[in-house]
């Protein structure tokens, strides 16, 4: 059988991609946001239970070390912020094992940027401005939704107060899966499932949708606050276009102790699920202890944005060589 060595994207698409990347860099240059390049390999990895990190062994002057391929450039960029670099952005190669599909590739490019002193609302506006500047035509206005409101509209349940049994039943029914397969699943998993199968496809149609006030349990590396209903929610947002999640932003957690606790909780959950534990990034924790300026940061799947801007069906249509044909 002949080996298909050809690129996944056409050469014409690669020219378009380069043009869009140049626009991204110009956007940040104009706003005095510094471009940085941080390592793909790190001593620590993402403890997030639902991310599978790749790792490798390296011979270093401190002996053989297990180094993690970064699932996003977040930890290194936060160390730069703690060192006083000011606003920064990066187009970073990131790796998430097993993630392959029309909108996923194991190795992908993340556009991540941090804005010390920005509020979440300011960062939402900047993110929307960037997205719109890269699209060939106006996608419609930016519309805000609260997580709770979306569940009321599309699933007719309250994500905070509905019982777990009922959430499992509704999630199984709406996602067309047997109820038994959700029998041991958490509240978060049921909400995630409903969000991705029922709600997401409705978002970003003739508009740019931004979702805020996620449940506090989905805070990851974001702060938590009480919303207008008195519920504890995560200070984060996601932006959707054409039913596809493009960006995920946080009002960044700067408390080292809180961060250490969340990493530890992740590893406890990993043990419970029989997943490998991930080395906690002590450099990040030390940097937070030193002090990271308050501010907001966002990660944007730039391959997806290029895919949408160029009207391509699959992510690999905008990649030189998709995994595993690489």
């Amino acid at each position: 059988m002949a080996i298909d060595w050809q690129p996944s994207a056409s050469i014409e698409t690669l020219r378009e991609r380069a043009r869009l990347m140049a626009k991204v860099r110009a956007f940040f240059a104009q706003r005095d946001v510094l471009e940085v390049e941080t390592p793909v390999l790190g001593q620590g990895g993402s403890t997030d239970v639902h991310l599978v990190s790749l790792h490798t062994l390296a011979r270093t002057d401190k002996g053989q070390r297990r180094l993690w391929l970064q699932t996003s450039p977040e930890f290194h960029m936060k160390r730069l912020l703690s060192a006083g670099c000011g606003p920064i952005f990066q187009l970073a190669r990131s790796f998430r094992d097993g993630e392959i599909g029309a909108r996923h590739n194991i190795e992908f490019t993340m556009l991540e940027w941090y804005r010390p002193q920005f509020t979440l609302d300011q960062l939402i506006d900047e993110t929307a401005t960037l997205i719109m500047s890269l699209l060939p035509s106006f996608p419609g206005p930016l519309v805000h939704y609260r997580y709770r409101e979306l569940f009321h509209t599309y699933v007719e349940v309250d994500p905070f107060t509905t019982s777990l049994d009922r959430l499992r039943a509704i999630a199984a029914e709406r996602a067309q899966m047997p109820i038994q397969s959700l029998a041991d699943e958490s509240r978060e998993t049921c909400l995630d499932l409903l969000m991705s199968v029922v709600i997401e496809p409705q978002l970003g149609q003739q508009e740019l949708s931004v979702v805020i006030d996620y449940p506090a349990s989905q805070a990851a590396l974001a702060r938590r606050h009480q919303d207008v209903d008195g519920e504890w929610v995560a200070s984060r947002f996601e932006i959707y276009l054409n039913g596809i999640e493009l960006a995920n932003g946080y009002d960044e957690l700067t408390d080292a102790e809180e961060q250490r606790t969340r990493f530890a909780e992740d590893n406890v959950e990993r043990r419970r699920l029989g997943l490998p534990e991930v080395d906690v990034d002590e450099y990040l924790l030390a940097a937070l202890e030193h002090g990271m300026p308050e501010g907001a940061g966002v990660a944007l799947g730039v391959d997806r944005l290029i895919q949408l801007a160029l009207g391509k069906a699959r992510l690999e249509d905008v990649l030189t060589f998709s995994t595993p044909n690489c």
Partner: protein
Amino acid sequence: MANYSTNEFKAGLKVMLDGDPCSIVENELVKPGKGQAFNRVKLRNLMTGRVGEKTFKSGDSLEGADVMDLEMEYLYTDGDMWHFMKTDGSFEQYAVEKKALGDTVKWLKEQVPYIITLWDDKAISVTPPNFIELEVVETDPGLKGDTAQGGSKPATLSSGAVVRVPLFINQGEVLKIDTRSGDYVSRA
């Protein structure tokens, strides 16, 4: 049969679901920002032809289905069963039930090769070639004159199918028909 995990689900893979063999049409990873991954999978039930959508947890697996597509020529029917013969030179014959034959019953012609889908060596569906040549056995007399003129009339073909044909077509003519749409294409 081997088991296949969600990340091996590819269009065309045959798997067992709720006791029926299915063919995977589409498999999409869905993964909320920070949450667990699922796979939304479109499957065609090979017994009913119906396409449905299901969600699996990423990493779940399904048993493979022993399904294969073989080319066979149509031989004859005895009224209960329809008989086909493999075209690989083995002369091996398969009897097909009416249910498995489905709509293809109206596109049958001797010595024409069909694709027979076998599950555990039993025929479950029959796909006709995209184009087939069939004789008109009954239609209103043809109209003389400009053959490019529009208008159509029904014609019954030797296989029993009734299709719309141009007015100039006569009984006894052999026509090329698109079996997917049931449309007249041309005179053969």
